[in-house]
């Protein structure tokens, strides 16, 4: 039986790759992702053998550790029909970068290639694979949306979040200037080059404030923590959330880095 016949017969089984930052800092995004996936007709599983996608090692040049972590992720997730992550950055790591880690090792390369076909970023998975047009959420808010770099440039995610947000009743999107420019997070970059990162995020929060929005959304918790941290340090009252929380109608948790100034 091919996998598509398989899927027609039953709900697609989705392995939710929560990402380390959601796991540690923002479980609500995990639950919101699970709800969105379930509402879209998926059976959601959260394997316990997940830690991180390996980007800290990968981007520090540590191929050996990256590969070990990648093997671990592939082993834990390859049995699912789909692997979905609420992060463009981590999804792109799984989808675009894992196969290259095994170059020269034919068996693993092929296995990683097959695995990468199943991997998706959450929002684009909902719109492009599960054909979700409306999540039925409502929220009275003026929001602005930041396009996180990996999702935008490696996975081509630009219109998908905006289409779903347009269907959220009561929600108004105020585009900021340069929504497609990096927020300065860059994983370990923001620690290694914290002064430069600060200059970049300062420009970003200036654009967020100037948009007139009272809430900032994006699809990556890393970028969101960076921007929320800067907004709060500057005394901004803009609230910061992952887009999944809004689309799932799960906004009872305080926003990232709290509310108020």
């Amino acid at each position: 039986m091919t996998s598509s016949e398989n899927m027609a017969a039953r709900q697609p089984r989705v392995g939710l790759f929560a990402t380390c930052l959601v796991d540690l800092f923002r479980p609500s995004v995990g639950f919101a992702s699970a709800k969105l996936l379930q509402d879209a007709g998926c059976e959601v599983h959260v394997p316990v053998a997940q830690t991180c996608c390996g980007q800290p090692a990968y981007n520090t040049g540590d191929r050996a550790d990256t590969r070990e972590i990648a093997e671990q992720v592939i082993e834990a997730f390859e049995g699912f029909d789909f692997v979905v992550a609420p992060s463009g950055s981590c999804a792109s790591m799984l989808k675009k970068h894992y196969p290259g880690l095994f170059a020269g090792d034919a068996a693993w390369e092929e296995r990683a290639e097959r695995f990468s076909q199943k991997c998706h970023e959450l929002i684009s998975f909902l719109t492009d694979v599960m054909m979700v047009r409306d999540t039925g959420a409502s929220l009275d808010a003026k929001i602005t949306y930041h396009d996180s770099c990996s999702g935008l440039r490696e996975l081509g995610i630009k219109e998908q979040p905006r289409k779903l947000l347009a269907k959220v009743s009561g929600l108004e999107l105020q585009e900021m200037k340069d929504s497609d420019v990096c927020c300065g997070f860059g994983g370990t970059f923001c620690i290694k080059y914290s002064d430069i990162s600060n200059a970049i995020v300062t420009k970003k929060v200036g654009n967020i404030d100037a948009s007139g929005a009272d809430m900032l959304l994006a699809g990556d918790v890393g970028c969101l923590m960076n921007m929320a941290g800067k907004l709060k340090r500057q005394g901004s009252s803009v609230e910061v959330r992952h887009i999944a929380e809004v689309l799932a109608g799960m906004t009872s948790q305080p926003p990232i880095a709290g509310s108020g100034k």
Partner: protein
Amino acid sequence: MELAAKHFKASAAKALVDVQLQKALGNVEKGFIGKRQKAADALPEFDALRDNARDIKNHVLAHLDLYLEEYERNVIASGGTVHWAETAEDARRIVLDICQKAGARTVTKGKSMITEEIALNDHLSANGIEPVETDLGEYIIQLRGEYPSHIIAPAVHLNKEQVEGDFRRVHTHLPEGRDLSEPVALLGEARDVLRQRYFAADVGITGANFLIAETGTSVIVTNEGNGDLTQTLGKVHVVVASIEKIVPTLEDTSQILRVLARSATGQDMSVYTTFSTGPKRTEDPDGPDQYHVVLLDNGRSAMLGTEYQDMLRCIRCGACMNHCPVYHAVGGHAYGSVYPGPMGAVLTPSLNGIEETGQLPNASTFCGRCEAVCPMRIPLPKMMRHWREREFERNLTPLTARYGLKFWAFFAKRPKLYRLAVSFGVPLLSLFGGSSRRFHSLPFARGWTRHRDLPAPEGRTFLQAWAQREALKQEPGQ
């Protein structure tokens, strides 16, 4: 001014608080990004041309030896001379020798990054020959004793008031009361001063955007016309170009020209695209008596066949730095290398070794905007990552980063241990987060909290909370 990539962090810190510089850097975003986008959008074939431009260069690199031989044959056939230089030192020696044989006292120069790479001006000066930069931006920074902060806009780090100050300091033969408050007046003054220099110069030195194998032609692409005056008015024209500038044919040149100016300045074509083939012909009323090409390797042949080969497709348009958030923040000089920005972060370690230049490929958020706009589709972030890998393999990665990473990786590779650690640590950290849900400062996260608050974890980890929810669902009677 010293070139020192190893001081990147300190230079960047200074650049970030340099008010003049920060004001000037605003011009990069204002001056380039929108214009490039507009030019690209106006040409439906732009992306197809980028693909073809990439393919042309890949083809050239795979046959570089043969195209160089063909190019050389055709230069000689048109009366020119080809000199091969393995190193920067060889190239400097060759150029100096040509200048000395021509009895040169001054040489004019068109804008050329390759002569920056080989530090030609210092070498000529040290040997009693005065080099005169004629591109407006290059002229300005030469007056200041600086090196370019951008590969196509060398003086982009300056404001007009600084240029006015330099002109008043140097052009002392002109009336003190003259009005230099606007760029147009500054340009007019430079034009007049440099006009005399072209005629006085014995040798004109330019770089090349392309070397055409089919015809033995060198091509320069400029907007000011200074490169043309430099190479037409001197008795001797010296072209200094690196080996990867080769393209097979006139048609191939046209393909790449269509993406070059659009990517660089947002023009459809630069004002002057000049194809030069050999010296003055017998019937010619103008042009140089001698035409020399110095073909420079300087480490490029060693990049072929490696993970850095794609970098040799670079056509020096500057789009990567024009779109780089790190470049926007610190400017070109902070990199401490001839080539700044993303292309410099890949090329500089190839030319100078990773030992002293390791900061450059690390100073990137991997936002990917450089690759997205590169007309030659060079995977710049990927190659920066390769440099980080070379560093890591050779234990050049800073120790704190290395130990920190190894500590983290120890847990990341052991899910059970990781779960145990975070299931204690995270709720504890959450507790300390208090009602504000953020930390203003945390002793072990100063790199973060120096500039921004750290959001507090919600409570338990997602996996803890999920497992508990699932367990409740499973319980009988639920």
